[in-house]
Structure formats: structure tokens, C-alpha cells
């Protein structure tokens, strides 16, 4: 049962990812990315990571991709133009990606002492996950959140700064 679900959703995931690259229109690519992310969420769920799965759906498929489509709609981006450079990118890029992924896979497969996760493993409850996050991994967890906070502050500062400068310029004129 687990294996069938894994094959189905891994297939969805790959198909979405390939479709993302092949589509000419940005909105189709964005929608394919949503398919990739939701099927990844199902794969997480199969591995027993329930909170990670639903966080993937809420945060990535729900919030971040809404912003992507929002931008596509706002800019009214059309079909992308094919230039000489993009053709070269296609010819060189695909083999390069395959090579890099193969290298990463080899390194990971040869690494010792990695934990093992099976498809039929039990569900790790949200309580267990948070217990680990707030005890063993407290420092990295908090540092990451501070990092995101800094990014937010930076974005606000950039947006606000631009606005005030525009007003100054108006005043000068």
C-alpha cells in the first residue's frame, strides 16, 4: 500500500517538475510547482512526518506559491522568449543537472552513520517533533527564526526607504 502510494506520488512529483521546465507560460510553471510541492507533502506523510507534510502544504503550496501566482498575474507576464542563450542553456543545463544530482546521490549513498527511514515507519507525532526542536535543536531553530526575522526587517526597510526617498524627490521638485 505504502509502495503504491509512493510510486504514484513520486510519479506526480517528477511529472510536475518536468512539466514545470517544459511549459512556456509562467503561470503553468507555477501551477506545476504546486503539484510538485503537494506530492512532496504526501511523500513526507508516507515517511511518517505528518507535521512536515502539512507545513509543506500550508507554507509552500498555500502561501508562497500564492505570492508567485500573484506576481505573475500582477506583471501579466506572457510566454517567455526563446533566445540563443536559452537554447544553449537547455543543451548544457540538463546534462549538468544530471551530473550534479548523480554526484550528490553517490556521496549520500556512501555516507556512513545516516539514520534509516522506511515507508512503513510509524507516524512521528507533532509533540515528539516539537520536543526535539525545542531541546536538542534549540539553537539552530532559533538562529533560523532570527535569520528570517532579519530578512523581514530588510524587506520592510527596503520598501519603506524607497517610499520616503520618492517623497523627498517630490518635495525637491
Amino acid at each position: 500500500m505504502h509502495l503504491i502510494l509512493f510510486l504514484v506520488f513520486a510519479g506526480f512529483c517528477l511529472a510536475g517538475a518536468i512539466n514545470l521546465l517544459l511549459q512556456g507560460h509562467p503561470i503553468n510553471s507555477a501551477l506545476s510547482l504546486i503539484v510538485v510541492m503537494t506530492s512532496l507533502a504526501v511523500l513526507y506523510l508516507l515517511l511518517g512526518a505528518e507535521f512536515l507534510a502539512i507545513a509543506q502544504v500550508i507554507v509552500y503550496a498555500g502561501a508562497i506559491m500564492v505570492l508567485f501566482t500573484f506576481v505573475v498575474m500582477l506583471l501579466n507576464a506572457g510566454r517567455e522568449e526563446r533566445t540563443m542563450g536559452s537554447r544553449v542553456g537547455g543543451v548544457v543545463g540538463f546534462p549538468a543537472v544530471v551530473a550534479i544530482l548523480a554526484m550528490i546521490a553517490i556521496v549520500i549513498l556512501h555516507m556512513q552513520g545516516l539514520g534509516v527511514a522506511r515507508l512503513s515507519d510509524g507516524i512521528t507525532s507533532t509533540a515528539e517533533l516539537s520536543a526535539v526542536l525545542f531541546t536538542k535543536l534549540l539553537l539552530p531553530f532559533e538562529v533560523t527564526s532570527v535569520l528570517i526575522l532579519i530578512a523581514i526587517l530588510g524587506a520592510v526597510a527596503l520598501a519603506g526607504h524607497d517610499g520616503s526617498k520618492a517623497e523627498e524627490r517630490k518635495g525637491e521638485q
Partner: protein
Amino acid sequence: MTIFQFILWSVLKVAVVTVVMLLAVAYTVLLERKLVGRIQNRWGPSRVGPFGLLQPLVDGAKSFLKEDIIPAGVYRPLYLIAPIIALGCALISIAVVPFGEPVSVAGSPHLFQISDVNIGLLVILGVTSIGVYGIALAGWSSNNKYSLLGALRSSAQLVSYELALGLSLVGVVLRAGSLNLRVIVEQQATQGMLTWNIFGGMQFVAFFIYLTAAYAETNRSPFDLPEAESELTGGYHTEYSSMKFAMFFMAEYANMITVGCVATLLFFGGWTSPFGDLIPPPQSMLVHALFPIFWFVLKVFCFLFLYVWVRGTLPRFRYDQLMNFGWRWLLPLAMLNIVAISLWLAYR
């Protein structure tokens, strides 16, 4: 229980819940038209059947039989799939809602809940957050400026208010120590009304934040900017006709019902009686099983009534007011509420 029994029970439960849900959607529309009629000093629908009770059936037939117009300039694949996404997501989220006490008959799983998942609350949030694509894609693919503006407003509104909505639920989860909707209800049920989250659980601020944010999430008055008739003709569904329009309409009402269910489960004790043990439990098995359903439906009905009442009473927000309110008031209030609840839970 074998896998075939499981599938059989699931299909059965899904079929029953879907039919009941669609009927409820149809009659919520009637309820709204009747109530808004009374608020505006007129009768509302009264011609079809006694008290206009057959009006939803006639409306449905009308939607089916109308001509389905697809405008020339639309982006067809997305134009066609958008109403399906909207209605699909609206109906899926009801799958984790428990309607009554966990009862099992002849080796069946819980009879009054399609699926009892550990992260039920988050599943509802996740499905709702996917539902926004229905509206966004409808507006974009229609190739119409009013539709596009409606869709943009809607996506911005949903992303903004989702934060406040999510944060308002943290207090409830902290008190229950679980994201499972059944556990959240059972933990409120010990002393009847006194231990409901909104009274004994000190969650009244969270409740009002949730209700406000949920009204914005479902695009309902006073936050119905995405379909503000006076500015955008019809908003995101301007170019939709016939059954496709009806699907958006049904999605909106199904979302209202889901919000009512979630509010009932999280703040008003779900299917439990407000009187706790004051009423002795009924002797008959059937009554014992159906009594909780009665309380649940009654509470959800009150929320639907409130929805219509608010729509009949409050004027629409202006767009900048909406954004200011969401980010400058609701979000900080929700964060303060989390801090206050955590302190209360730690030192009570």
C-alpha cells in the same frame, strides 16, 4: 478491519457527508435570502413551495439549464479548472470534521467523522489555503480587468488574514495539547458550557480574531472586496455563467459551513451538550448517538445565522482599511493573545 471494509466504509461516509453538505449549502442560500429579506423589510423567496422551501431546487435546475458561455479571450484550461478547484477544496476540508461522538457499529470506524487524523486542524487550514487558487486562477484566466482585480484583492486578503487566523488558533492548541479535532472537543467537554474554550478556556479574544479572519477568508461581508458589486461588477466570477458560476457560489457557502463547524469544534465544545451532565444521558442507543449531532447542527446553524446577520448589518470595508485592520490590529492582537494564553496556562 480489512482494507476492503475500510474502503467501503469510507466511500459510504464520503457519499453521505457530501450529499448532506450539498443540501446544507442549498438551504444556507435560502436561509440567507430569507433572513436578508427580513432584515431589509421584505419577504425573501416565498413563491416556490411552502415558505419558499423548494427555492434551492428550482435555483439548481435553473443553473443547470442556463446556457454556458465561455468568452472568446479566456485561457481555457485554467478557466475550466478554476471552479473545480474552488468547490473541491471547499468540500474536502469537511472530511476531518467530527460531527458527533466517536460511535462505531459492527466493527466500523468512527461513524460521524470521515477521517480522524492527528493534524485535523492543520489539514483544514492547508486545504483552505489551496482553495485560494480557485479564485486567483478564475480571475486571471478570465482575461477581464474586473476579474483580475477581484482575484488580486482576494489573494492579498487571504494571505494577510491567514496569518491572524492561524495565530488565533494557537491558544486553543496550547490548551488541548493536540491538533486532533476530536481531542480538542473532548478536552472541552468535562463541565459542559463552563469548560468550553470560549468561556472557561479564556479564548474569547482568540474567538473574535478567528471569526473576523474567517469572514475575510471566506470573502464574506464586511470583507467581500473580491466581489464588490459596486466597483468590480462581479469580481473574480464576472465571466462565469451557468453551472460554473454556481460552483463558485456553492464553494463560498460550503466554506461558510466549514468555518461554522471549525468555530463550533474549537470554541463551543463541538458536539457536546452545553449543560454537561445536568441532563441525564438518554437510555435509547439511537437517541444517545443522535443527540450530539443535534447540538452540533444547532451550533453551526447559529454561526450561519450570524454570518447572514453580519452581512445584513455591516457596510463593506474600504480596501486600505481592510489591509490596515488585518496587519496593524488583528495580527499584533493575535500575537499578544498567544503570549497571554501561554502565561495563563503556565501559571494558573
